[in-house]
């Protein structure tokens, strides 16, 4: 910043280095920086666990890899976690591209899950199963859409702050789930027993259905954002609302339409979580993925295909870091520390991709 102001004296000392925005970076350079960041972060983590827990680096990496890939079940679980996180990240992406800060994905997915659970609870066994599935799908999508469209309408018509509004809607959803569980469960255990007989059908194992559905959604969202008129409109609204108005885009309509889509995708996440794998619901069914999704989306530059990689990274970190704390019977904080350090490097390296550091050149006078 300071070096852009004109020097007052001709004898101004040039700083040792200054930061400048990069014009363009070749793709392989960008990936080289990212790879270097990941290697550096792993080295930092190995060092930290060595000093905090006395874990030698080779067993540190072995633990981490075995947590993610150790058994067939773990590999399936990893890809399942990747898929669910990706699904909820796909949901927030159109809104983010529109510069609408939807941080309410947690609540939108949870309310979709609650709608699914309610259908299973009230209609299970009372209506034919295929019809039940249709009702579950419709109810979860509708519930997610309602939860998302409320802040969108307020934003479109009264320009309320969507960040706060969507955030607060999360807490309403969480409390509603807690309330409904207490309403349904009278035994005092505070947990709703699994309703597995009304769950969505499984193909092969419990995870494949979710993985297939989400793969299809990923491609669909990619096409929607990249090639559809809607996708173009929402990115124009994101770049500049005035431009959008000038070219005749109905901004209110775009905001509401995009958030309906966001909410619907969150609803699907809730459906897959409750109807597909968990067969029950609790306040922690979504488990913070609604917030992690924000990072996935940003790190993936709002590109659904890149987001597959960032979801993979986060799912891998979750499984691997937890394995380290379990293997060494250490406090759960160690896995949080490891995850945080790696994310710090990964997010931090984006800075070096966007900007370059120019060092003072010796023996050369500034003009």
């Amino acid at each position, binding site marked *: 910043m300071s070096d852009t102001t004109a020097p007052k004296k001709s004898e101004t000392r040039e700083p040792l280095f200054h930061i400048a925005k990069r014009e363009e970076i070749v793709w392989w350079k960008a990936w080289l920086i990212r790879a270097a960041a990941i290697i550096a972060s792993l080295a930092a983590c190995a060092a930290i666990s060595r000093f905090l827990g006395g874990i030698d680096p080779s067993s540190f990496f072995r633990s981490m890899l075995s947590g993610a*890939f*150790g*058994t067939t079940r773990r590999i399936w679980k990893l890809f399942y976690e990747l898929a669910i996180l990706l699904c909820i990240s796909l949901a927030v992406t159109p809104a983010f591209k529109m510069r609408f800060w939807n941080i309410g994905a947690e609540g939108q997915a949870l309310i979709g899950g609650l709608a699914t659970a309610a259908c299973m609870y009230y209609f299970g066994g009372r209506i034919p199963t295929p019809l039940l599935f249709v009702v579950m799908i419709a109810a979860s999508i509708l519930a997610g859409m309602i939860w998302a469209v409320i802040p969108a309408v307020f934003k479109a018509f009264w320009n309320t702050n969507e960040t706060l509004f969507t955030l607060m809607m999360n807490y309403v959803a969480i409390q509603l789930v807690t309330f409904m569980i207490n309403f349904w469960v*009278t035994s*005092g255990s505070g947990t709703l027993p699994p309703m597995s007989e009304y769950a969505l059908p499984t193909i092969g194992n419990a995870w494949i259905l979710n993985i297939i559905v989400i793969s299809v959604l990923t491609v669909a969202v990619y096409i929607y954002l990249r090639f559809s008129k809607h996708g173009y409109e929402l990115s124009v609204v994101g770049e500049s609302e005035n431009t959008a108005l000038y070219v005749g885009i109905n901004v209110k309509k775009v905001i509401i339409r995009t958030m309906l889509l966001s909410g619907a995708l969150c609803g699907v996440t809730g459906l897959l979580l409750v109807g597909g794998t968990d067969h029950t619901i609790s306040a*922690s069914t979504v488990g913070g993925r609604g917030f992690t999704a924000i990072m996935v989306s940003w790190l993936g530059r709002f590109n659904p295909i890149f987001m597959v990689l960032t979801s993979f990274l986060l799912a891998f970190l979750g499984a691997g870091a937890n394995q380290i*704390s379990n293997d060494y019977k250490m406090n759960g904080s160690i896995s949080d520390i490891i995850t945080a350090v790696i994310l710090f490097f990964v997010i931090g390296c984006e800075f070096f991709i966007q900007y370059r550091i120019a060092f003072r050149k010796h023996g050369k006078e500034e003009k």
Partner: protein
Amino acid sequence: MLKKVLSTVLALATVLTLCVAFASCEKKGTENLKVGFIFLHDDTSTYDKNFMNGAKEAQQALGLKDDQIIFKYPVEEGKACYDAAADLVDQGCTIVFADSFGHEEWMIKAAKEFPNVQFCHATGVKAHTEKLDNYHNAFASIYEGRYLAGIAAGLKLNEMIAAGKFTAEEAVIGYVGAFPYAEVVSGYTSFFLGARSVCPTATMLVDFTNSWYSVDAERDVAETLISKGAKLISQHADSMGAPSVCEAKNVPNVFYNGDTIATCPNTYLIASRINWAPYFEYMINCVKDGKAIDTDWTGTIATGSVVVEVLNEKVAAAGTKEALEKATADLKAGTLHVFDTKTFTVDGKEVTTYLADVDDYGDFKGETEVIKDGYFHESEYRSAPYFDLRIDGITDLSAK
């Protein structure tokens, strides 16, 4: 480009899986007994830490290696519990243990899927009705420990009365409960009966936080109880909320699941705790010897499952140690019964018959007669507590 990255990642993943799989194959031949433990939280929760310490104690006692005892935490009360159990089976565990009430449904699901693995669950209620060969419940008669802690509390009240700090009628005990369930009711009633056995004028105020672990709620309830005249505080909740209030206000405190003598040296009196090591040793030995594990196992003071933590001599009244030794001996000998029907009344009357809800089908209807030979037979027909009588002398503040 992207395809290349993806295929590289996938190829790497496959290679690593194979490596790990081969590595674990080598280990299997040398040792076949592995025990998996599922905990709700990590060791910051006193409840889970108590189980972890029990597991480590059993490991030492039986001379098991570190890699024969596998921990999984934090594991939520839901599908995560089933996943954790299945993962432990994949790792070669022949016994899987889970520590929280809400894990039960998922442990049963896993037990049905893996009939060759023994599933043991603490605090659960369904083993005796599910009738699976490989699913078992366990608990301990912690009411005995609470009764003993109650004796120490009653003697402390007597000492304060004698010192003129308050009158005999003002000897009020405050109790911070988690939820108004049988487990908690059984706990505070036994504690109260212990106190009243030595301090006949003692009464008790109880309130609930509706959470097993909430520092703020437990602190608030403790403060309310003290403001309503409680002269001593005890609890059935898992945080340090209440003890910290007691230390600040100089009110004697009886803790649970560990001692607070280091952090509350001036007010910590005594604590009771379930020691899980005897059960863990029992279940591991059963599998080692090819014997069946009890469907419903209740640890007692005699099995070493119910223990009283260190008595703080600085706070305790004179003669407490001797009184505790005598009561312990009487409990072990079976001459003293905590829920002796002559020692309490409900609505002014002695209880001579009571049907408890032992078979937990969610109907809340009692079906088992639990009063025989002049006392309430707690934890005998099922390991998890079912004493839920509201006796005279205890006021439930949440009921108002």
